[in-house]
């Protein structure tokens, strides 16, 4: 069992590298109706969006909450009148919608007040300090105005950074999190009521669905890693497990937006930081002693180990964050890439025969990938939970004197 899980983890990690190969095609990025670009399309589909699109037909507008040096702007994304590719036809208070994401005009001359019809977008790349960067422009009355992307917390490492505005909108990912959380709360409340109402009866219905998972987290994760005091941390572990699992699975549902919540670094960052804070706040003398002054080794080794341990302290949540986001995003990209085969073989709709061949190749590959992703959804939720449990377990572990260090 354990071995199989590790093989699956390795398998799912390997997907990340496959994805990189796909992404390399995204250099050429023509706007609108040009050649099909699978990389860009995949990224576009797994990105968070300010409009919830289902099957490119239903577009549910979402609330926009934006903060710039001009103050707060709160309005519905329906104002942008999003069309094909989630590109908005209007600008509102200097904000535009491009590929489902909000941008702000950063060049003087553009009317920054009210609703204004715009003529489209342009995309180029700039090389800044050896790194190429995507730059977008909006066309308005035959002029191009440079756009600012939303502020990101990557500090420029991943092409983002602080810009002229921040986006606190209820995005597609936020809506998905709210929906999945509400669904899970309802589901577990239902099960809890069942347990309260008939404590002496065999589990049935929703209990039968959830009980094996709850028992699995308790008996395979909480008890082995935390030990006797597992009861205190079991609700946290279960919350993390089901929150991640629910969102992983929600992202797997075809045609319902294929939301990539647990594949967003923002979400996994929050979870990882939370785990980091909780496990270190719980850390006892024994735990800190093993980090800063490892007992039972010579002093030079103690100093060396302290350096390594302090690094590990921060690497742990970092890997936690990257592993989940990487795996889920990778799965989404792999599926989208296989679907994209239809367009590549069909030469973007020009060759019917090619499209048919592409479809024939794509369907089994996509089905295979979705099966793998279903397993990955469980495995990643499990891995995140088991690592959380092991960090908490290490932090609260009491020294056992008989063990030799």
């Amino acid at each position, binding site marked *: 069992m354990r071995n199989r899980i590790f093989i699956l983890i390795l398998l799912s990690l390997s997907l990340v590298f496959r994805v990189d190969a796909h992404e390399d095609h995204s250099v050429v990025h023509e706007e609108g109706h040009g050649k099909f670009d699978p990389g860009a399309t995949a990224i576009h589909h797994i990105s968070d969006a300010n409009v919830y699109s289902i099957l490119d037909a239903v577009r549910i507008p979402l609330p926009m909450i934006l903060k710039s040096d001009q103050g707060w702007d709160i309005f519905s994304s329906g104002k942008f009148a999003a069309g094909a590719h989630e590109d908005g036809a209007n600008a509102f208070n200097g904000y535009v919608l491009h590929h489902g994401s909000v941008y702000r005009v950063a060049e003087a001359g553009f009317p920054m007040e009210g609703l204004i019809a715009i003529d489209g977008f342009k995309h180029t790349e700039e090389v800044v300090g050896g790194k190429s960067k995507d730059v977008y422009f909006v066309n308005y009355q035959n002029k191009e105005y440079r756009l600012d992307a939303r*502020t990101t917390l990557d500090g420029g490492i991943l092409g983002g950074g602080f810009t002229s505005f921040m986006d606190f909108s209820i995005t597609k990912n936020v809506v998905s999190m709210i929906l999945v959380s509400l669904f899970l709360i309802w589901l577990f409340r239902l099960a809890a009521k069942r347990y*309260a109402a008939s404590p002496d009866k065999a589990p049935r219905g929703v209990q039968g669905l959830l009980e094996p998972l709850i028992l699995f987290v308790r008996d395979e994760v909480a008890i082995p890693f935390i030990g006797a005091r597992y009861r205190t941390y079991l609700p946290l572990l279960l919350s993390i497990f089901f929150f991640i699992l629910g969102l992983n699975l929600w992202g797997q549902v075809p045609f319902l937006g294929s939301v990539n919540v647990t594949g967003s670094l923002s*979400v996994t960052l*929050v979870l990882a930081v939370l785990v980091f804070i909780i496990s270190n706040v719980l850390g006892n003398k024994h735990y800190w002693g093993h980090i800063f002054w490892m007992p039972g080794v010579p002093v030079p080794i103690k100093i060396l180990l302290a350096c390594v341990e302090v690094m590990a302290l921060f690497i742990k949540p970092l890997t936690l964050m990257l592993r989940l986001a990487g795996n889920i995003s990778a799965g989404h990209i792999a599926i989208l890439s296989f679907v994209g085969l239809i367009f590549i073989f069909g030469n973007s709709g020009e060759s019917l025969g090619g499209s048919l061949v592409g479809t024939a190749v794509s369907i089994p590959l996509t089905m295979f990938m979705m099966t793998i992703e279903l397993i990955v959804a469980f495995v990643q939720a499990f891995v995140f939970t088991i690592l959380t449990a092991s960090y908490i377990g290490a932090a609260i572990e009491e020294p056992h004197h008989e063990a030799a260090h």
Partner: protein
Amino acid sequence: MISLVTFTPFQPTPGLAIWSLLIFLIFWYLVAKFAFKPIAEALEKREEDIQSAMDTAKTTREEMANMKAENEKLLAEAREERSKIIQEAKEIKNQMITEAKEKAKEEANKIVANAMTEIENQKRAAFAEVKNEIGVMALSIAEKVIKKELQGDANQEAFVNTLVKDIHLN
């Protein structure tokens, strides 16, 4: 490298981070308080119940086995008691029979002895009576003889002599 640049899901945004923090914390609070704690407690209680039920079944089985053994023991004891009682009864019966026989024998002997004594007594009495009768008869004979004698001496004498001879012969 360009791929990473456009990889927006890996650009953490403050908005999504704040919302996910908020949503997860609320989710955690609600689901932990209203679902996971009661469920975990219910599961634990059920496990304890099952364990105790199994333990009870085990002890009951043991008790049953003990009771059965005890019953068998009692039964065996009762059986033994019964055979003992029967044995005793038999002995008593035999004893009684023997005693009764002895008593009967004794009684019979006594009766026989009594009868013998009675017979002896009767015999004696009979003899005595006979003797008396004989005496009376002898007297009457003697009377008659005397009366006849008184009629003729010689005859009387001869007669007396024969009578006397007869008496002697008896």
